């Protein structure tokens, strides 16, 4: 698949829901791909620490919620991007084995591995010859 270009603009969440805290909330960029065993979700969450990241699975809805601690040193003189929390939800189909979901956050990138349930894996059916 063709590679995407690096882009600058963050996608701010547009009034999908009211937030209780001030400041912008962004939709992180994600890649989602499927292998034979897993569904893999990768999200860019720069500035999010592991303890400030919530991944919630609630009735087929997987929600990523990352809080960014603002650490501006000194006074800001020039600004091209805003810091804010990240939030995005996905519907996870029942073919996922929800108990075996694994997540890892490294260098601002979240990787969630959602294993497919046994029933959903491709199976080869042996044909017996008599």
């Amino acid at each position, binding site marked *: *698949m063709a590679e995407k270009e690096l882009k600058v603009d963050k996608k701010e969440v547009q009034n999908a829901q009211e937030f209780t805290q001030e400041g912008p909330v962004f939709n992180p960029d994600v*890649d989602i791909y499927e*292998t034979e065993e897993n569904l893999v979700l990768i999200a*860019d969450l*720069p500035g999010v620490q592991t303890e400030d990241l919530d991944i919630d699975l609630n009735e087929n809805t997987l929600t990523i919620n990352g809080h960014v601690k603002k650490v501006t040193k000194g006074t800001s003189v020039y*600004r091209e*991007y805003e810091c804010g929390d990240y939030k995005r939800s996905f519907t996870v189909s029942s073919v996922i084995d929800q108990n075996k979901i694994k997540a890892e956050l490294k260098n601002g990138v979240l990787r969630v591995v959602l294993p497919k349930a046994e029933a959903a894996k491709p199976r080869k059916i042996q044909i017996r010859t008599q």
Partner: protein
Amino acid sequence: MAFTTIFQPTGYNRLYQYDILQNEMNRLFDSFFGGQRRGRRSAGFPALNVSQDTDNIYVTAELPGIDVNDVEINVNGDSLHIKGERKLPETGSNVRYHRQERGSGQFSRTIQLPFPVNTEKVSAEMKLGVLTISLPKADEAKPRKINIKTA
């Protein structure tokens, strides 16, 4: 290569002020119409934020998933060059993409800093996918307290 000037020299003061005015107007419009434009539009990847205190200038950029070894930072007088590449790990050919939003490729940016900096002491740190470059101001650019002698 993208080139950005943070501050204009004094001669361009009026232009700079016009810029401030325009930014304010944009902000007013955006807040009224609920737009999403915040700050200035970046001249290229990565978007940069600049802040300062009495001793240092700090430049930050969000570079999630970018290896420190793939970033090169050069300081030359009062200009700062950031160059690098974002490589996404190979996923293999047996993979079907449902979404692909994360970009990859090479990037390069140059910005002009408002003060000359002490190039020897520039330091950079990558943490949680955020790059912070600390540039100590050159001695002549630091604020100095002037003692008043009483006769």
